[in-house]
């Protein structure tokens, strides 16, 4: 493919990716304007935008919108970074050592199918309804996802490249550092995107635990007072955070694992 062809292809991708949400928005506005659904159930986009502007200037329940956003982001980032670091570490160890794999197999596989929401009552018992429970709940989900992905990544390493490294004098650590880890990176980057989506989901759920700030709190509070436009505005903010982080991670992934899909 020539350079200009590639450019045109990219441009078309960006155009379609931008137009598709706008089309949905237009259809939505049209449906609301024709009165196909009651405004309590499906308010028009303009009303949601108005609520968003209201929150952005006056805050929600006496707290600035940015404090809500900041509280949620702080919880997610702490839990995400810690969970990803430990999960990747454990996954790599499991991939490299049969013994460590055996050690962690039952605990992690028993824990993995349990929906995080099912753990909420336990976490309340153990850690109360404060920050600890919320962060730990996200942390645990991220950790489990990243452990599975990192371990699978280790297995993606080809026998020939391991042998090549050994026959060029690499010791165990060098084989790991220069061959196993880079081979696992594509899968780890994919895992990071999946885990980010899950982390945001769990965030909203974890903020149901209580407290007086956070986007999850905002959505729940607005919904219990039937302030549908505020619910939508809150949901949209979370969605936009998800979109931005996913695009960011995908971009970073393309730079870091530049060789993926080009062999």
């Amino acid at each position: 493919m020539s350079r200009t062809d590639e450019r045109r292809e990219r441009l078309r991708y960006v155009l379609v990716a931008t137009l598709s949400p706008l089309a949905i928005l237009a259809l939505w506005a049209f449906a609301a304007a024709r009165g196909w659904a009651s405004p309590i159930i499906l308010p028009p986009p303009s009303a949601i935008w108005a609520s968003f502007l209201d929150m952005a200037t006056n805050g929600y329940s006496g707290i600035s919108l940015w404090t809500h956003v900041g509280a949620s982001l702080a919880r997610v980032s702490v839990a995400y970074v810690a969970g990803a670091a430990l999960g990747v570490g454990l996954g790599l160890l499991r991939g490299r050592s049969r013994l460590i794999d055996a050690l962690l197999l039952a605990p992690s596989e028993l824990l993995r199918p349990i929906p995080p929401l099912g753990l909420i009552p336990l976490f309340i018992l153990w850690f109360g309804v404060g920050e600890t429970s919320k962060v730990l709940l996200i942390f645990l989900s991220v950790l489990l996802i990243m452990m599975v992905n990192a371990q699978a990544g280790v297995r993606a390493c080809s026998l020939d490249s391991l042998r090549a490294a050994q026959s060029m004098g690499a010791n165990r650590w060098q084989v790991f550092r220069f061959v196993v880890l880079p081979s696992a990176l594509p899968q780890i980057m994919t895992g990071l995107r999946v885990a980010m989506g899950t982390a945001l989901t769990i965030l909203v759920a974890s903020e149901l635990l209580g407290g007086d700030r956070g986007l999850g709190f905002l959505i729940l509070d607005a919904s219990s007072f039937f302030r549908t436009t505020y619910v939508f505005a809150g949901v949209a903010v979370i969605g936009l955070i998800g979109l931005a982080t996913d695009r960011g991670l995908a971009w970073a992934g393309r730079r870091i694992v530049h060789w993926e899909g080009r062999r």
Partner: protein
Amino acid sequence: MTVAARPLSPLEPGAAPLQAKAKAADAPPVLKFEKVGFAYDGRTIMRDVSFAVGPGELVALLGPSGCGKTTILNMVAGFLRPTDGVAVVDGREIVGPGPDRGVVFQAAALFDWMTVAENIAFSLRCAGARKSERRAVAEEMAALVGLTGFEDAYPYQLSGGMRQRVGLARVLAAKPKVMLMDEPFSALDVQTRESLQEEVLRIRDRTGCTILFVTHAIDEAAFLGDRIFLLNDLKSGAYDTFDVDLPTPRALPENRLHPSFLRLRETIYRRMRH
């Protein structure tokens, strides 16, 4: 005895072409199999295989697919241990992989996350060489295999032939005593394959490296080999040996039409078909 047991550095352009046959006669073998047997999970692949390869010699292992060529190479590389007998390199039993035995893989097995220069200098990095030294050696080896200007490219930006050149260069950078090549050019087009075959002969002349070259192509074996082992029945340890007698330098393309080449090709062909 004046024969260099260590291969001459490819960095010394003055290294004289080695007379492999003369050397092989009076020097102790670099590589020796003594009644080697191998079985995969109890299924015997070979039994009582013995041979010796002299310093600077290029031996072509020729045989049909599945006869055990790769298995022999893997035992020399130290990836597999013989189930019976001993495999010896430089007087010591082979117990595992090491930089004294370099491997060129059929599918190159380059590290896609490293540049050409980083791939080539990998053995030096493992040995703790400084960055400037690694770069210098990488450039030197890239020049040796005709990759000057591609040092900073990534393997996925190269053609199949160029990838094999990198595979060759990274093995040479480790200055191995023995080079093991497992059908390295079988996936390439004829022109690329022939030019790489000539490259191998030139590199052997310059470095004095001992080479075990696996192939299933008679032409390739006859053009490259000082000797050819035709592996017709490894299960009983039997194989035919053919001495190749072609003018030196062996890299001459005319050798492909030399009467001696054509005769040998026919002999082997008849032997394989009998």
